[in-house]
């Protein structure tokens, strides 16, 4: 009411209806002020009301639009909900569209079902864990950082911990490290451990003992097929590992024993061969001197005995060689008929001594010359025929060669040794091929023998690509036969020249400590018209070759002072001599031969040597020089 006494509306009213109002009485002025205050109060109230109404209206509008937005959103949500519900429960589609409360019930039911299913899954998970524990398997899960997320108790026990302790531990931080480290090594990172893997690792257990674990790992994926870590299942294989180690040690010991046996065998064979060599050589020399019939008979018997001993020793050596796979077949061309005729002749003598008929038939289709390891073939046939003669009291023994198949450069030959002897019972036929086995122990007592022959023969035939078979009936004779492929020879009608030894005054140094062998070799070489000097040991031989003009050295291997190997090494390496050196040894094992050639010898002959063979070798080297 600035500048005015009354409210402006009241003033206007007063001017209009009561022009003389300024001069009214005191009471009247009091009344007019009350009226003016009422006007003023009304105005104020109106302003307040209007402001409040406007504010309220604005607020309500704002709330209304917020509500509208909410309603829009709600109807969108409801629509999505309906769509989702329709696809989830197609059979309830009508309900879904009409009644939201019913839909809520349906969803509630579904949630309930799901809860039940989850509870079942949990139970089944637990059952699985129980099974794993009962199976004595340890299991743990880890995340992509290698942190253990779950470990079952058997797994934790391995490390002396509880499953709770293990939770959250890093696989790399504790003793499981080797397991995971192994994994990491192959995968590069935990994230890449994607394959199923099986491996064995040693580790330190709770009691500081070594334990071996067989581990299998597999990746774990979440619902969206994203790798979330892995699971490892371990099985304590410490017992198996210990057994394995014990077996390995036992095998090593056995192998060492075998090696020892072999070396003993070699030594024994050497020790045996040396005297036999002497006996055979002496009897050969003796046979070349003028003898009467009685003396000739003694010599023959001596020769027969020494031959028998040699066969026995060879059999033993063969078993050992064949077992260790150290037999190599030779490839020699031979005259078929001449070879088998000679073989038959040797055996027919024995047959006739027992009053048996011995025949040898060679199919006309069999080639004149074939190639193969004729010595081994003879060994097999000799064995079969000796057996046949041995086990046949009356009747006949025959060798039959027939062609099974012929090709341009080879023939498949069937060898058959038939006798009319005691035969072998059907239930014992398989056993006779085993080592140290004869038909029965009474057979051994009656007929002697080692029982090694058939076993060796079977193995040799197998090496040649055949199979030694037997057809027999108790008391009705036996037929041993096999078929092997033999390559064809080059020349068909070349005959071996007659053995007429002549070394034509060649100078030979014989290095040999054994007096008998010295005498034997010296007699043999001298008869072949060689000029022989003798050294007692390697050292003496080295001295002699420095001055002597020798064409060839025959070097025994085992000697006192300096052995053959060392002497050869000095001659080759220090004296730089290229003179032919032929090794001589009673040790017939292949190792020795290889060692001899390796150290610088030109060739090697095992004692007792056949004169023809030794002559051929000496002659070969002399011609070359």
């Amino acid at each position, binding site marked *: 009411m600035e500048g005015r006494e009354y409210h402006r509306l009241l003033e206007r009213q007063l001017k209009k209806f009561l022009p003389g109002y300024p001069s009214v009485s005191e009471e009247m002025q009091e009344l007019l002020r009350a009226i003016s205050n009422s006007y003023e109060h009304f105005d104020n109230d109106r302003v*307040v009301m209007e402001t409040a109404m406007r504010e309220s209206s604005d607020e309500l509008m704002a709330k209304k639009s917020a509500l509208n937005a909410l309603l829009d959103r709600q109807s969108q949500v409801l629509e999505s909900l309906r769509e989702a519900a329709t696809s989830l429960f197609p059979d309830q589609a009508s309900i879904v569209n009409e009644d939201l409360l019913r839909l809520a019930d349906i969803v509630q039911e579904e949630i309930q079902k799901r809860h039940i299913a989850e509870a079942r899954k949990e139970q089944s998970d637990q059952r699985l864990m129980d099974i794993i524990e009962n199976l004595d398997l340890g299991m743990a899960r880890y995340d992509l950082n290698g942190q253990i997320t779950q470990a079952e108790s058997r797994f934790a026990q391995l490390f002396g911990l509880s499953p709770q302790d293990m939770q959250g531990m890093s696989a790399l931080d504790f003793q499981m490290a080797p397991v995971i480290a192994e994994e990491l090594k192959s995968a590069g990172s935990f994230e890449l451990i994607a394959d199923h893997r099986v491996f064995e690792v040693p580790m330190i257990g709770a009691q500081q003992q070594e334990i071996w674990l067989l581990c299998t790992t597999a990746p774990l994926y979440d619902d969206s097929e994203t790798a979330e870590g892995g699971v490892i299942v371990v099985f304590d294989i410490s017992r198996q590992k210990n057994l394995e180690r014990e077996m390995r040690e036992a095998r090593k010991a056995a192998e060492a024993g075998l090696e020892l046996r072999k070396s003993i065998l070699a030594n024994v064979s050497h020790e045996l061969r040396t005297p036999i060599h002497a006996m055979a050589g002496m009897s050969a020399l003796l046979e070349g001197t003028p003898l009467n019939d009685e003396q000739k008979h003694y010599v023959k018997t001596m020769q027969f005995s020494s031959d028998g001993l040699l066969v026995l020793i060879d059999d033993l050596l063969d078993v050992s060689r064949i077992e260790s796979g150290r037999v190599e077949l030779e490839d020699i061309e031979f005259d078929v008929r001449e070879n088998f005729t000679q073989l038959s002749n040797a055996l027919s003598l024995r047959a006739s001594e027992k009053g048996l008929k011995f025949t040898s038939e060679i199919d006309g289709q069999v080639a004149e010359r074939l190639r193969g390891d004729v010595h081994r073939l003879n060994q097999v046939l000799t064995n079969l025929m000796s057996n046949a003669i041995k086990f046949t009291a009356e009747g006949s023994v025959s060798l039959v060669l027939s062609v099974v198949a012929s090709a341009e450069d080879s023939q498949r030959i069937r060898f058959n040794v038939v006798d009319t002897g005691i035969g072998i019972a059907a239930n014992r036929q398989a056993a006779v091929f085993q080592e140290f086995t004869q038909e029965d122990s009474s057979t051994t007592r009656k007929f002697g023998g080692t029982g090694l022959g058939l076993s060796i023969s079977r193995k040799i035939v197998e090496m040649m690509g055949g199979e030694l078979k037997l057809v027999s009936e108790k008391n009705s004779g036996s037929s041993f036969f096999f078929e092997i492929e033999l390559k064809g020879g080059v020349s068909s009608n070349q005959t071996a020249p007659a053995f007429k030894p002549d070394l034509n005054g060649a100078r030979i140094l014989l290095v040999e400590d054994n007096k008998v062998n010295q005498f034997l070799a010296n007699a043999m070489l001298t008869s072949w018209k060689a000029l022989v000097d003798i050294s007692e040991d390697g050292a003496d031989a080295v001295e002699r070759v420095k001055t002597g003009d020798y064409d060839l050295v025959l070097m025994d291997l085992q000697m006192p002072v300096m052995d053959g190997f060392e002497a050869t090494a000095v001659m080759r390496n220090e004296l730089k001599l290229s003179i032919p050196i032929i090794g001589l040894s009673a040790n017939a094992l292949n190792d020795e031969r290889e060692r001899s050639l390796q150290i610088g010898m030109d060739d090697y002959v095992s004692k007792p040597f056949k004169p023809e063979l030794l002559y051929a070798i000496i002659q070969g080297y002399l011609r070359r020089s």
Partner: protein
Amino acid sequence: MKVHQHLWKEGKGWAESAQSISQNPALILAFGGIDTLANDPVYEEIQKLYPMADVVLASTAGEIHGEEVFDHSVSVTVCEFEHTRWKVFDGSVLDCANSFECGIHISKELNAPDLEHILVLSDGIAVNGDDLVRGINHDLPANVIVTGGLAADAGRFTKTLVGANRKPESQRIVAIGFYGDRLRITHGSQGGWDLFGPVRKVTKAVDNVLFELDGENALEIYRRYLGPRAADLPGSALLFPLCILGSDAKSNLVRTILSIDDEAGTLRFAGNIPEGAQVQFMMANFDRLVDGAAQAAEQSDEKSPDLVLMVSCVGRKLVLDQRIEEEVESVCNYFGKTPAYTGFYSNGEISPLMGSTVCSLHNQTMTITTYHEI
């Protein structure tokens, strides 16, 4: 029960020739303007007239005396009871740890087997009326009716005066216990305000201090709604009392702003504002305010009271302004010429909710207590 009344006018003394009506023991209720009580020797004058009486005084925002409403006066009502005993409690707010403890203390002081009614006249600024009422109710039997009001200071909300048998002071609480089975007390309470605007949630409040509504600073909302009248805060906030919505309209509670803190941006109310409560602004509707007073009278359900005590809210006076006497008239019309009428405009009314004897603090209402000795 005999009732006599006198009116004191500020600076002028007794309106009529003042003489003692009786020398019997009596209970005297004196409601006066804050300045009148502070400056005039009113208490001394009453004591001179009634040396045997208990004199209870309280400052107001307007005095109801007969059918009229006065400012700058003291309405003095002398009650002589034939069968009823009374006991006056006079204490300081500072005697107890808080308003609730004050209430507990009062009920302990006044409680007795034949306690019928407690009339409370409390400081209207320093007291949390809500907590005070809860404290009084705490140990009282359910049949004891508690009514009364918080003293006022003409809408300034700075300092109120209360006293019993002494010059009234601030920070005091007076309560009178009435004993015996011959006194009939009835009560009624009505507002007549209209709810308007959005329903809001109390998102931050501590006791009777309100911080936020719907996450928005509550003082800011008030400023927006008051517009040009925001400058008159806190008085102008009486235009928009806050209604705490109950489960139904009957249990709604109305709250008046006592003060504001501009720095903290908070409003302090006459009663507690529970955090999480739903609230709504209210605004005046003149006719309904007047009707409300009449309804309060009807609620009391007493046909022939000896004394009608009206405690009405300062907010109603601010709104009704010159029409304020209309609400007093409507009450007087209901009870007729027989009873004596006294009362005052307060900072808060104390009365049970309707349908319950458990007393509550109200704001913005006309609260009536009738006294009748049989």
